[in-house]
């Protein structure tokens, strides 16, 4: 049994990573072969990770290691948290790969594109299963490389600049995080997370590590790369960032600060405030921006604040809520980005002031947009409601009423700006005779919209897994 699980975990990590480098080889055969192979790899990853769900539901935890030099053992830990993250991100990742078939079909550098996306998924898998700080960092940076190549995918000067900015800012955060890890190492003499449970760590290390997390997860004040990156690349790339990449930092937060280390009291108080502040500022920026993709990117920043908040309040409901949030936000934000993609594709512009009345010509997109918007805002019965609700409940439960109030205000702002976009883009006077997107594009957004709805209606199933994960936190907090 254990061996089986081990094999599956290793497959989950290495199928995409090793597979990604075979994609150019497949590309030598034909375009079709490459696309097929990429999708196959992504699906295999998802399947592998999903095979772990029963194990996770049983509350199982498995850690195994490969000895290496100087405490840099490759340690893998599989528990409900990591399996939840793995399933969600590989699932969304696989969806993105499938959708890329249509979106990227006409561009150059497709080999590189699929290679990088698969590598990205692989690094994500590696990250969630790593229980060694250094290996976490390693996969973290592989993801950053992937992100860099993807943002600059079109090779246009301005986009490449944004890619560099994103890479630099996240790298800046990440190396300081590494420094934080090293400070912890200096204190404990190990990088092994499983051995450090319940360790109290110095505030400086927390600050440094937070720099990394905030930069990766685009939280104020290290968030500005995300809106920029959101503008530049293909829609799919933007989506990949919003739906998956930014979750890395959040996951690391959960893994480190909810499941492993004891935060100093001051930080425990400060972090919820910081993230809510971030949420508010991003919401404000989204309310002011006129560029469709920038708005959505800022919206991501704002929602990330919630996810952090749920983890930061350190109670089971918050953790459950945040994990659900990761899932729901992944689906709904993906839908929003893809709707935006269809709109931009049709109108060839991103300024919402130049759009209008598109509900007439693209009703499906409009409806899908509204569905996803509902989910992001947190309106039942869409999935986003439950996650947001649980995060708020948990925040109040931890005694932070004002923080919860601010978070709810951010939710009101979310309503405002998402409907501002909706009004500007789909309602009002038609400014162009933009046509509905291609069948596959529309199909995709509708599927995501429906998934957002279904995730809400059948919320009990993901919650079960999330609750197992959040149940573990109690064990470590004691």
């Amino acid at each position, binding site marked *: 049994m254990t061996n089986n699980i081990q094999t599956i975990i290793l497959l989950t990590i290495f199928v995409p990573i090793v597979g990604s480098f075979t994609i150019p080889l497949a590309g030598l055969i034909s375009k079709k072969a490459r696309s097929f192979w990429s999708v196959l790899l992504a699906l295999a990853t998802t399947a592998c990770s999903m095979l772990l769900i029963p194990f996770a539901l049983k509350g199982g935890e498995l850690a195994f290691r490969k000895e290496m030099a100087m405490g840099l053992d490759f340690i893998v830990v599989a528990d409900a948290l990591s399996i939840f993250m793995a399933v969600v991100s590989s699932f969304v990742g696989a969806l993105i790969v499938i959708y890329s078939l249509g979106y990227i079909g006409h561009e150059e550098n497709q080999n590189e594109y699929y290679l990088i996306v698969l590598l990205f998924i692989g690094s994500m898998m590696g990250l969630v299963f790593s229980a060694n700080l250094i290996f976490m960092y390693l996969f973290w940076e592989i993801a950053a490389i992937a992100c860099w190549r993807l943002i600059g995918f079109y090779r246009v000067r301005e986009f490449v600049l944004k890619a560099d*900015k994103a890479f630099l*800012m996240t790298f800046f955060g990440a190396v300081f995080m590494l420094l934080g890890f090293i400070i912890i190492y200096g204190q404990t003499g190990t990088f092994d997370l499983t051995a450090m449970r319940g360790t109290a760590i110095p505030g400086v290390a927390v600050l440094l590590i937070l720099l990394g997390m905030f930069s990766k997860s685009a939280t*104020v*004040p290290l*968030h*500005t790369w995300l809106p920029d990156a959101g503008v530049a690349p293909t829609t799919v790339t933007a989506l990949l960032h919003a739906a998956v990449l930014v979750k890395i930092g959040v996951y690391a937060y959960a893994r480190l600060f909810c499941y492993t280390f004891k935060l100093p009291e001051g930080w425990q108080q400060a972090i919820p405030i910081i993230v809510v502040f971030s949420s*508010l*500022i*991003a*919401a*404000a*920026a989204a*309310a*002011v*921006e006129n560029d469709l993709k920038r708005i959505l990117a800022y919206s991501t920043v704002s929602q990330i604040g919630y996810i952090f908040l749920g983890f930061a309040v350190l109670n*089971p*409901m918050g953790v*459950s809520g945040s994990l659900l949030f990761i899932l729901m936000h992944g689906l709904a934000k993906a839908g929003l980005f893809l709707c935006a993609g269809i709109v931009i594709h049709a109108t060839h512009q991103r300024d919402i002031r130049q759009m209008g009345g598109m509900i007439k010509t693209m009703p499906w997109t409009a409806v899908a947009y509204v569905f996803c918007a*509902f989910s992001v*805002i947190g*309106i*039942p*019965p869409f999935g986003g*409601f*439950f996650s947001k*609700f*649980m995060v*708020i*409940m948990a*925040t*109040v*439960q931890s*005694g932070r*009423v004002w923080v*919860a*109030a601010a978070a*709810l205000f951010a*939710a*009101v*702002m979310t*309503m*405002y700006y998402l*409907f501002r976009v*909706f*009004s500007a883009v789909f*309602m*009002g006077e038609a400014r162009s005779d933009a046509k509905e997107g291609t069948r596959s594009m529309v199909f995709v957004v509708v599927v995501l919209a429906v998934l957002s709805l279904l995730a809400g209606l059948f*919320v*009990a199933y993901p*919650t*079960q897994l999330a*609750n197992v994960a959040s149940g573990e936190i109690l064990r470590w907090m004691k």
Partner: protein
Amino acid sequence: MNPQNLLIPVLLPLLLALFSFLLPRGVKRLREVVSVLGAALFVYVAIAFFGQKETFLTLPWLGHGIDFELRLYGFSQFILIALSGFTFLITLYSTVKMAGDPRIREYYGYLFLTSAMSAGAVLANNLVPLVFFWEGLLITLYALITIGGKGSHRTAVKAFLIGGFCDFSMILGIAILWSQTGTLRMSDISVVPQGLTAVSFYLMMIGAIGKAGSMPFHTWIPDAAVDAPVTVMAFIPAALEKLLGIYMLARICLDLFKLETNSAPSLVLMTVGALTIVLAVFMALIQKDLKKLLSYHAVSQVGYMMLGIGTAVPIGIAGGIFHMINHAMYKSGLFLAAGSVEQQAGTTELKKLGGLAKAMPLTALGFVVCAAAISGIWPLNGFVSKEMVFHGSYETGYTIFTIAAWLGAILTFASFLKAGHSVFFGPRGLETAAVKESKSPITIPILILAGLCVLFGVYNALPLKLFIQPILAGHAAPGESIDFTAHALAVFNPIALISLGCLLIAFALHFFGFKRGGNKAYLASEPIHRLPVLRTLYDWAEARVFDLYEQGIKFIQAMSKFLFRFVDRPIDAFYEKVVVGVGRACIGALKAAHNGLYANYLAWTVGGLVIIVWAIGALLR
């Protein structure tokens, strides 16, 4: 009763909704037939539920004490009947009124979804399912308003945002309540609002009265009256939201929190109620569009209910709840009547209408009865419930609230005199010459509602004993009488006499205005409109100065701009400008330093040697 059956009131409309959504647009009859029959079945279910024992249903859901819990008991049975009844009537009415609408498929779908959600909210016994259904109503509300067509979207967003704000307040309130009591099961919660729980009370109150459309969360209603289909107006703001909102308010004040008479929360609630009565009715008075006028009344009447429940006196509470059901009936009736007029005459502007009583006798009859009921004319139901509210507020000792209520009564009557007079009496307008009576599916609901108004007035014992007493049963102080039927229609007591006097004043006002306006009924309110101070206030109100939504949006915009300009952009500028600038400066300095001169380089070398030797020397010491 099998607890699983509790799901029927939720699932039945849900199935109907799905049916409507999935039925292709081309099929016409079938949809209407199934809808009406389904709604009838819904009514049947609700009636079948009535009188059943208290039943609980608990299904595991999200963990953390969040379970899917439903509870059927007296109060929810009562609301369920009302809910299903209105659903049926509106469905029936819609078969004609909405026929041919391009979005008919969605219309029925949303209609039944609304019913399903409302049923869920009414039955919920856990705060989370409650919020789930409660907030879910936002979607259908939004969708239904947008069916109104051009320009309705703005109003829909407005309704959505206001509703969302209120619901988020409620969520916060629930969260606080949960953190204080440790449970989410509504039947287990009963706290005195103090400190944090008081905050929770206010927040949940905002959620409840926001749904009910009280001031200051009412402003979407008059807008929607213009934009949304009249059936939607009759169904949601007039009936459903009052049912739900006041139901919730009653639950909050009676069950979740122990509201003490004259305690701060009680006074706050009464104050808001009184203000809502007076301010909204002032606005209603001067409206020149029938639907808008009705919509302001829909707001104003909420004030009575809040005032009643806020008294925390049994008779007040009973009055508030009774007023809720009464209001749902006559206001729906009024809206439907207005819809009937709109259907036939093509407009609801008072100026263009007139003398329709002859052409549309049934509609006129329904309208007049409902208008009389809302104005509190003896012996209609409105009189009974208003009297109870007056009594209740008087019992608290704060007569000021009673006076406000009376003031509201005066103006209500005055405005309805104006409305009825303009639409159905007086000279016939030229544009409306060819108007005929509406079809029976339209008139029947109106007449049923009018009939119910009379019934509940004359046989007030029926609702009071059957529905309302059970609700109060567990809450009134022991020995206190909760049988109000005795003096329900009593006229000869001071309060009732004053009320009747108010009606006379209203009549006088209307007559005065009518004469001043050159015998034009729609100008009857102008004397009040033109009063010195009021006029300015009215102008401001027209300019939406008092519209909290507009101000809120302005605030959000301003704040967003501020945060964006002064926080977000500076942060970005830090990276884009400061970091790059520092980099540039360093680069510049270094470039200047590496000037290619050999002597310069050698000087660095020698200088470096000197510094190193000095440093080593210093460090050795």
